[in-house]
């Protein structure tokens, strides 16, 4: 039988959600012939759940992605309708940017970008099979191509799977079950079998979304209005800050109450999760309202955010109240919430179940261990959220491209970015529920701030080839300016003279006994670089982003230094690479469990090995000593 070959390219990307778009753009921009497959071209970069991008720790991901050369930050800057820096009352580590998107516009803009990228082809088709040849020598399956539903074959060197929630998807709304992907879109029902046949281990996860309501049926007078920031900070480091100072729309805050909770409790038996109909595991940190009521039984109210879905629609998203209860219960439940007494539901809340992989089958490069040329990203890897998906799609895409170009993979480690934390957690820890990014997951968050993502990652983006010379030079220059100004302030003496004392008194700051340095004064909580301008007449004119860094670097100097020390410790064992041909059975003193886990996970570094559950610190010491001997013998 002759093969029905449609095309021969470098990379095939399966899925055009947030992960697939980043993967395909990265590959094409790196000059590889790329095809991106989607079941519906109209659903490119679809936001089937919340109408926003960013938020606590997710905002960090978007900025990091942007620093590396991804698209999400630029796209939301073009399409946001409200923007807010969260947690500004707290320390800089937890500041996080969140923007409300015009969903349709977001989708349309991303599609436009895809359509206008060289080397990139969009193809509407369901991929049913991935094609691989077994290679005796390496013991790996080598990627050959993909087959679409009608039998057509696209030959390629690498495949990136970003199937999101579409694989064998089914949506549940109480007793009503439909076999569709999100938003009633066609599910992908063939690929799972092909993956299983190739030995990929699958599991089933679930997630959910709340109802959308007709704006005209909502009484906003009973809610608190939530405005955007007066001065909007763009997501992308490449966006001109002036271009994002637009008229913004409002969101609204209201609360559930005991009555809401009572209705939910009385109908729990009709919830597919509590009735045991849903087999998939849902995200603990993005719980449905049923989960919240059960889990926080002592709370008499929960927040509900009413957010617009876009400028050209009346639909409003009911944040915080996702549910899989039947429609009649949903109506009752929502109508107990102040302002929603007469609400009309446009789209019901529902839960969705889908196939995804066990991500321990992946290396931190997001390459499958058992395959050469197979990569994956997004919800397919067991994560949840647009931002989590996008960064993985990017990393998977970049590494697929590098594989084709025979380059070493790029891995961001835990000390370099939330991206590193996210991927390391996914591939190293046992994840039993959709993985959501959270601030607390990052050990070094004072260093991994959203404000310095460019300083942390631009260089890597430049080396990958997705950051221009000009963008890179800008960051190098910025770094210099920051360093120079910090040094200047550390050496700038401030005398305990009359002018100083008067200034301090005016700002409710303790007077000086002896002279000090400007940097010391900046450390006082009540003072800052800006306030101290009066005592520092000769200061140079600096861009706002430089001043921001100078402020943070000086104010939190001690903490930053201590965290840097922690990172040094971390790097020491993170940089101890484990050779891929290591045989753990050779190491007599490793405990059996550790030996099995290490053989399964194939960690690339001692650091990664130390994070595998079941591998104890004692095992790690054994490994360290063993490797020392191993490398010595190799020399």
């Amino acid at each position, binding site marked *: 039988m002759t093969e029905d070959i449609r095309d021969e390219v470098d990379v095939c990307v399966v899925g055009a959600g947030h992960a697939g778009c980043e993967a395909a753009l990265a590959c094409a921009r790196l000059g590889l012939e790329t095809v991106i497959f989607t079941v519906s071209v109209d659903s490119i970069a679809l936001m089937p759940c919340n109408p926003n991008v960013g938020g606590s720790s997710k905002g960090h991901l978007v900025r990091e992605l942007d620093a590396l050369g991804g698209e999400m930050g630029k796209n939301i800057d073009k399409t946001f309708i409200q923007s807010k820096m969260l947690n500004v009352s707290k320390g800089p580590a937890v500041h996080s940017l969140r923007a409300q998107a015009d969903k349709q516009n977001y989708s349309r803009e991303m599609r436009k970008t895809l359509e206008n990228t060289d080397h990139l082809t969009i193809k509407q088709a369901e991929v049913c099979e991935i094609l691989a040849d077994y290679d005796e020598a390496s013991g790996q399956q080598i990627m050959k191509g993909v087959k679409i539903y009608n039998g057509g074959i696209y030959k390629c060197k690498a495949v990136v799977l970003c199937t999101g929630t579409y694989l064998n998807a089914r949506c549940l709304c109480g007793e009503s079950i439909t076999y569709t992907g999100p938003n009633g879109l066609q599910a992908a029902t063939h690929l799972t079998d092909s993956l299983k046949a190739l030995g990929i281990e699958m599991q089933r996860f679930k997630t959910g979304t709340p109802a959308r309501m007709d704006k005209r049926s909502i009484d906003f007078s009973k809610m608190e209005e939530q405005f955007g920031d007066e001065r909007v900070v763009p997501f992308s480091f490449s966006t001109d800050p002036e271009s994002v100072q637009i008229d913004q729309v409002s969101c609204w805050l209201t609360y559930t109450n005991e009555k809401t909770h009572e209705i939910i409790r009385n109908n729990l038996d009709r919830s597919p999760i509590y009735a045991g109909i849903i087999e998939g595991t849902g995200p603990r940190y993005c719980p449905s309202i049923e989960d919240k009521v059960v889990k926080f039984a002592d709370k008499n109210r929960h927040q509900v955010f009413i957010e617009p879905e876009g400028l050209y629609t009346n639909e409003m998203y009911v944040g915080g109240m996702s549910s899989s209860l039947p429609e009649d219960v949903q109506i009752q439940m929502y109508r107990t919430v102040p302002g929603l007494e007469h609400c009309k539901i446009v789209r019901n809340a529902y839960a969705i179940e889908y196939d995804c992989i066990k991500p321990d089958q992946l290396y931190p490069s997001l390459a499958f261990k058992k395959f050469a040329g197979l990569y994956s990203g997004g919800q397919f890897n067991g994560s949840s959220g647009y931002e989590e998906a996008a960064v993985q799609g990017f990393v998977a895409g970049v590494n697929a491209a590098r594989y084709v170009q025979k380059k070493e993979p790029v891995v961001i480690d835990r000390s370099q970015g939330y991206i590193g934390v996210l991927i390391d957690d996914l591939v190293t820890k046992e994840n039993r529920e959709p993985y959501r990014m959270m601030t607390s997951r990052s050990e070094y968050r004072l260093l991994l701030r959203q404000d310095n993502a460019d300083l942390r990652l631009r260089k890597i983006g430049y080396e990958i080839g997705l950051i221009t010379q000009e963008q890179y030079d800008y960051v190098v220059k910025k770094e210099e300016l920051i360093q120079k100004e910090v040094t200047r302030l550390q050496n700038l003496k401030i005398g305990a003279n009359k002018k100083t004392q008067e200034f301090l008194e005016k700002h409710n700051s303790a007077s000086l006994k002896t002279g000090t340095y400007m940097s010391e004064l900046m450390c006082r909580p009540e003072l800052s670089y800006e306030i101290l301008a009066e005592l520092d007449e000769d200061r140079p004119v600096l861009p706002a982003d430089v001043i921001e860094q100078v402020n943070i670097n000086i104010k939190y100097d001690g903490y930053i230094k201590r965290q840097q020390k*922690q990172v040094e410790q971390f790097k020491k064992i993170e940089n101890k690479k484990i050779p891929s041909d290591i045989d753990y059975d050779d190491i007599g003193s490793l405990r059996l469990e550790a030996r099995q886990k290490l053989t399964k996970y194939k960690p690339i570094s001692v650091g990664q090995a130390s994070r595998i559950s079941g591998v104890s610190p004692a095992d790690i*010491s054994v490994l360290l000593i063993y490797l020392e001997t191993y490398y010595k013998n190799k020399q």
Partner: protein
Amino acid sequence: MTDTIAAIATAVSNAGISIIRVSGSDAVQIVDEIFVTKGGKHILNHVASHTIHYGFIQEQDEMIDEVMVSVMKAPKSYTAEDVVEINCHGGVLVTNKILKTVLAHGARIAEPGEFTKRAFLNGRIDLTKAEAIMDLIEAKSDYALKASENQLQGKIYDEVVKLRKKVIYEIAFIESAIDDPEHISLDGYTERLMQVVDAVLLEIEELIKNAENGKLIKEGIDTVIVGKPNAGKSSLLNRMLGEEKAIVTDIAGTTRDIIQESMKLGGISLNLIDTAGIHETDDVVEKIGVGKAKECIEKADLVVYVVDASVPLDESDQSIIEMLSGKKVIVLLNKSDMETVVYEQLMRDRIAECIGSDMDQCRIVSTSTKEKTGLKEFEEQIRDMFFTGEISFNDEVLITNARQERALVDAKEALCLVKQSLEDEMPEDFYSIDLMNAYASLGSIIGEEVEDDLVQEIFSKFCMGK
């Protein structure tokens, strides 16, 4: 297959005895090539494991030294490899010459700590044990390696685990509040955290204080010398100290008031208990009473019972013997230079009469502190008891290790920074950095935090031959 390493395992000095340790697949073969019996035969390839042999080291018909060679085959050896130890007469020149001969026959010189590293890699010991061994080596105990059972355990471990739990609980609470501010509030939390930090600080300071004491005491065999007045206890003591030119540390006034002197006998550290009584009145039993003596014996790992062999045993001896039941004892029949009325069999009979068959195997040595006879044998007996595991170091674990103490100090400093941040009203993501540091420092004490430099440090601190 491992390459074979060799090194001098004892301190290089003109001491009475030196040991060259050889470990690896070819250890037996290599030593066999240079070792002959009195009859001139090469036998080591055929001897059973864990045997010791008398003979000579020779190289091309030149006799280098008269030696005892012990053969311990894998896996029941220190490194879990084939190990051969050559006990020679010592002296820098001869010892080096033997080592050179061993190297000439195919072994390579071991790196510092390499024997222990191999023991570790082969699963013979874990890291805390390795560290305990290092402590013992630093206590200048040549036979300390045999005491690898005595590892960090017990009280300190439990204590640190408890403190860590308290710290991690707070860290977890802060993290959950950062993630879910809607449901978990940090309002008023700083007061609570301050209290916890203060409490933990207090306990850490207590541990640091203990560590300071522990450093003085080091680890050693708690030994008590008992006997009637004039049996010759203090002259024995003086003789032992004098003979060995041992390290004598006066650590009076430390918390453990029962320990007065620490000395080294044949390479083994002994903590002499209650020597104060001996010095002053020569009569423990009378001065401090039977009750106190009993208490001392109770605590001791080893009891040295000095008997005046020139006078008959009496009721005082009777009461002393009764206290010895169940203890590890060496009986010294002292004053052998005089006409003796107490001889070994009589002593054994008397012991059996008093406390039954419990101490049938008890070791009895005739000594004369005056003539300096029998002391070597006494020393051999102690060494033998230690070798065979009959006695071991005291179990009470104190923080004796500078690194562990450093870790405690680090934890303390980190918690002080937490307090500072709380006072400065810094947000939670700042003080959690130092809380985490405190947690990690505590973890490094009990081996829950593995840092590469720690592993390297532990092995690099070993001296050559260990």
